[in-house]
């Protein structure tokens, strides 16, 4: 049960990664520290998908890519039906997939107030 999503900060050069890399994209370093990836960001693009893969019992899910103020971009599910390019969203963490005996946590982006 991972109820937090992280960025991975290179301990050598400070470059941030999401998702985790084995080797730093900037300096080739291999040590990282976890940094909570939270807060508000901007919706870069989105879609509403009607043909879902196995395991989802819903008619559709909306997905989006969000850019955080630290420059990182991450994909996630959208928790709101109001969808517009460039809108402000707030990154929450919730169950994005129900597994057998184990649920998967990830970003669910909500409209920022």
């Amino acid at each position, binding site marked *: 049960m991972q109820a937090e999503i992280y960025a991975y900060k290179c301990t050598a050069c400070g470059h941030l990664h999401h998702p985790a890399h084995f080797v730093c994209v900037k300096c080739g370093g291999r040590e990282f520290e976890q940094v909570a990836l939270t807060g508000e960001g901007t919706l870069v693009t989105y879609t509403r998908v009607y043909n879902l893969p196995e395991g989802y019992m819903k008619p559709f899910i909306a997905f989006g890519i969000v850019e955080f103020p630290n420059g990182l971009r991450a994909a996630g599910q959208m928790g709101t039906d109001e969808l517009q390019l460039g809108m402000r969203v707030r990154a929450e963490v919730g169950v994005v*997939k129900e597994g057998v005996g184990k649920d998967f946590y990830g970003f669910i982006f909500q409209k920022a107030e």
Partner: protein
Amino acid sequence: MRQVGIVGVGHTKFGKAGVPLVEMLSYAAVEAMDDAGIKTGKGHGIDQVFAATMGGGMINRQHGVASALVDTLNLRPAMAESVENGPASGASAVKLAYMAIASGMCDTALVVGGELMRVVSGWEATDFVATMLHPEAEYNYGLTLPALAGMFTRLYMEKYGVTEKDLAMVAVKNHEHAMHNPVAHIQLVPDLYSITEDEDAIIINPHVAEPLHVYDVCPVSDGAAALVLCAMEAGDRFPKKPVRIAGIGQATDTHAVAERAVSTDLLAVRLAAEKAYAMAGISPREIDVAELHDAFVILEIAESEEAGLFPRGEGHLAVRRGDTKVGGKLPINTSGGLKAKGHPLGATGVSQIVELTRQLRGEAGGRQVAGAKNAMAVNFGGFGNNVIATILTTGGPEKYASGNLRI
């Protein structure tokens, strides 16, 4: 380095196969061997077999597909390798066969790509295809190829003024081309007005992943395609003049799509194409016909730009002008493309080369591009994180390097 050419092509009718995976591959393989005038069975002259399939294991519960193929075709003790690079598995197999011959390790190779997908439900197939996405940052969210394509399409439309009608025009063009290709899966042409502007358009052409509609997405198809490759110096031993593989370029990009610096770029397409042009000594202006990976029609437009065939942001204008139709300036996806011919994952990269070989041989019938001499294929793995560009030509050096032929 030895030069390598194509001397045989084979292709099953894409659609629903109704036979086991290895049998389906075999139909394409023997057609290619017949086309190359090579005997099957003893004294067959095939040194090595490459099989390209993504779902042999997960969907068909069979591993070591190439070894099984060698046995059923009675090509033992030929070498055999199974290759997987998602929807670009086919081009990877062609590339590896190219290297095998160029290295001198063998003189001839049989490349067979295929996928048997219609044995599982639609949502299982969608899930299976999604296993090439990033496991934590994409797959676990329920993200799929259509989801990524939808998000990419929205940005591309916003940035370059591409319209939903432009997308539908690509689809209609490719369906028109497929009418002249007997092995294409879909043999009907949708009416542009009915799928875009008609009041019932959203009913016959509903959304799959907004803004993508059904007609912007390729179907799920079974099928196989095959090639016989040989060292060019042995080209005169085969009935048909070899079509030479002039250049191959390959490049990788970030696994998680969100990480890419410019969301509307397909960097791996650009780098792969640049490498292929450099190796071939052929410029984009010299390309006469191209097969681009239109699993989603937006990709045909974006790839036509990244591959240098049209200026950045103007691929859709070329579609509007009719440049990319057979008869136009630079016909794209004369086979019908993935959109109308179908997209059996492992087959696609091989199928593209089959089509271009037929074009360069002048065997493409009602979809022939007159006088085609140079051709390009782009095969797109993952959502563009592993891309291969291949350039074929009828031209070549007068004399080929010798590599101690064994055939």
